[in-house]
């Protein structure tokens, strides 16, 4: 657990970067600091490992006052990941990762073995061990940065915009892998970003900070999207937040069974299988391939890849309502395709059915609110 107790950072020129921050980051959870530039999010993070000294107030690491330990002892016990990875150019990847273990006095062999283990953990080819940072792409360097921070197995990790310098596709991969890693490791993480989508995707709780260094709202991502506390937070979490909040709503949908076709089927089979003029093509493992317009298959011809419409997205049957709605809206047949964890077809669902489910969820929530209001009053 990390606890901020009326923490203030004021610079000699009078600028107040952080103004009386009170906040608890629970153990084993990801707490995201998000806000516009100048809101003090990075300053707050850097005060935890005393890269910046607070002007007043206390930061607790469990029951340890961070101001009362030596800086190097404190920092060696906290993983630290920064925006441009900050790898040491003159050291090989394996030696970069072994930095903190070696500082802690581990023997070289053990530190190396640990490095190799971590490379595998973060999805790096072990052949990279003897390479130098300049030989790696930005995304790979950032993986090394994460591995290096994890090397001595610290309970706490500080991550300062670690994924913001890589392209969006790689960023998405890194985020997914980061979440997978966290589900295995359960570290107490403070994560700084200026990107609200990243905050909502990664955070167990999100702290929105305002310029001047005050906390505007501390809430779960879903609560932040559905119930912003003021205009600033509402503006910051942005448009489409009603739609984006659906990303946190899940519920098993009643999938309608769907007649399918295979490559090689003739036009008559397609006409029979199709509903409203569209039939879904699947492969041997019943994984959806795309939609076929029944009328587009000339009589006597067979279904082949050139006839597929691939526009529709796929949604997991146990996934979010947002994904299900998107699948329905993007499907050429109007029927969203639901799949199981193996990628095999479960059935289809229409936008109307998803919306109905959303409405019943909202209805249930309103009832809860009312009850809360009654018992609270």
């Amino acid at each position, binding site marked *: 657990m990390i606890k901020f107790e009326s923490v203030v950072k004021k610079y000699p020129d009078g600028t107040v970067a952080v103004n009386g921050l009170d906040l608890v980051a629970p153990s084993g959870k990801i707490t995201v600091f998000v806000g516009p530039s100048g809101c003090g999010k990075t300053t707050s993070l850097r005060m935890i490992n005393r890269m910046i000294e607070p002007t007043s107030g206390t930061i607790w690491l469990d029951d340890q006052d961070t101001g009362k330990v030596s800086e190097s002892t404190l920092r060696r016990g906290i993983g630290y990941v920064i925006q441009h990875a900050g790898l040491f150019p003159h050291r090989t990847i394996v030696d970069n990762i072994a930095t903190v273990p070696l500082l802690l006095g581990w023997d070289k062999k053990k530190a190396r073995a640990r490095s190799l283990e971590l490379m595998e953990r973060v999805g790096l*080819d072990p052949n990279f061990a003897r390479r130098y940072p300049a030989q790696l792409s930005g995304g790979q360097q950032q993986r090394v940065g994460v591995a290096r921070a994890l090397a001595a197995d610290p309970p706490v990790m500080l991550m300062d915009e670690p994924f913001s310098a890589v392209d969006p596709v790689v960023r998405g991969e890194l985020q997914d892998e980061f979440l997978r890693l966290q589900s295995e490791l359960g570290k107490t993480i403070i994560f700084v970003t200026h990107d609200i989508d990243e905050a909502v995707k990664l955070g167990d709780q999100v702290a929105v900070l305002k310029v001047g260094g005050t906390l505007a709202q501390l809430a779960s991502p879903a609560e932040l999207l559905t119930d912003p506390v003021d205009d600033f937070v509402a503006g910051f979490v942005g448009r489409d937040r009603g739609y984006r909040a659906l990303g946190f709503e899940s519920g098993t949908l009643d999938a309608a069974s769907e007649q399918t076709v295979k490559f090689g089927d003739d036009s008559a089979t397609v006409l029979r299988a199709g509903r409203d003029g569209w039939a879904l093509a699947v492969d041997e493992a019943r994984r959806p391939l795309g939609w076929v317009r029944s009328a587009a298959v000339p009589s006597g011809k067979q279904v082949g890849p050139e006839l597929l419409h691939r526009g529709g997205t796929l949604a997991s049957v146990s996934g979010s309502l947002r994904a299900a709605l998107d699948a329905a809206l993007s499907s050429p047949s109007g029927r969203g395709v639901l799949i199981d964890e193996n990628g095999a077809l479960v059935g289809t669902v229409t936008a109307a059915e998803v919306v109905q489910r959303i409405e019943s969820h909202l209805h249930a929530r309103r009832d809860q609110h009312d009850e809360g209001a009654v018992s609270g009053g």
Partner: protein
Amino acid sequence: MINGIIEWLSDGEHWSGPDGITARLLEHLQYSFSALAVVLLIGIPIGLYIGHTGKGSVAIAGSANALRALPTFGLLLYLVIGYGDKLPTDWIYLGPSLFVLVVLGVPAVLSNTYAGVQNVDPAARDAAKGMGMTGMQVLLRVELPNALPLILSGVRSAMLQIIATATVVAYVTLGGLGRFIIDGLSQQDYFQMAGGAILVAVLAVALDLAFAVIQRYVVSRGITGRYAAPAANADVVAAESKASV
């Protein structure tokens, strides 16, 4: 002309004896390396300190550059005439001579060292501190190895300047290869003079090459970009596309 010079250089008699080429060459190296050693002892620690702390960069860097403007020959004569008699006998000429060579070499080493440390990737420095390295560990394990190419090139250019300029100490009765130039001039023996000049140039080039070889082995391959496998880049690209699938 050229034949005359070659004849002078290839005459075995010119190479032997206490005022032969071999002896003068050794003297020349002795002056140069003594001066260079003092230059390193002054330039590197101060350069590292300024680069690491950022303190005094304006004052020190400014005065180091001002030092470059001092004419070595003028300074040498001024010191010998003005202060020579205040020194112990052995040092009357040697002291001022080493001093001017040190003054000549310090700016290049000092300013390259401090620029080298200052140019280290701020992210690497921040990460080093954030992982719990002490100030000294950051300096020795991160800043110094990364500043090494610049530091070494400063040392290299200081060395070349000192080797070339150490000829002037012959003017104040000392030895070294400058002896042939000064004596050749006064005896109007131009072959000797040109031969001496060529010897200085060859010595400078030879030491520069030796230094280049040392530099190859001292600087990390991660910085110079000379990676182990020539096909390393192709491997990275291949592995990358595999990773993204």
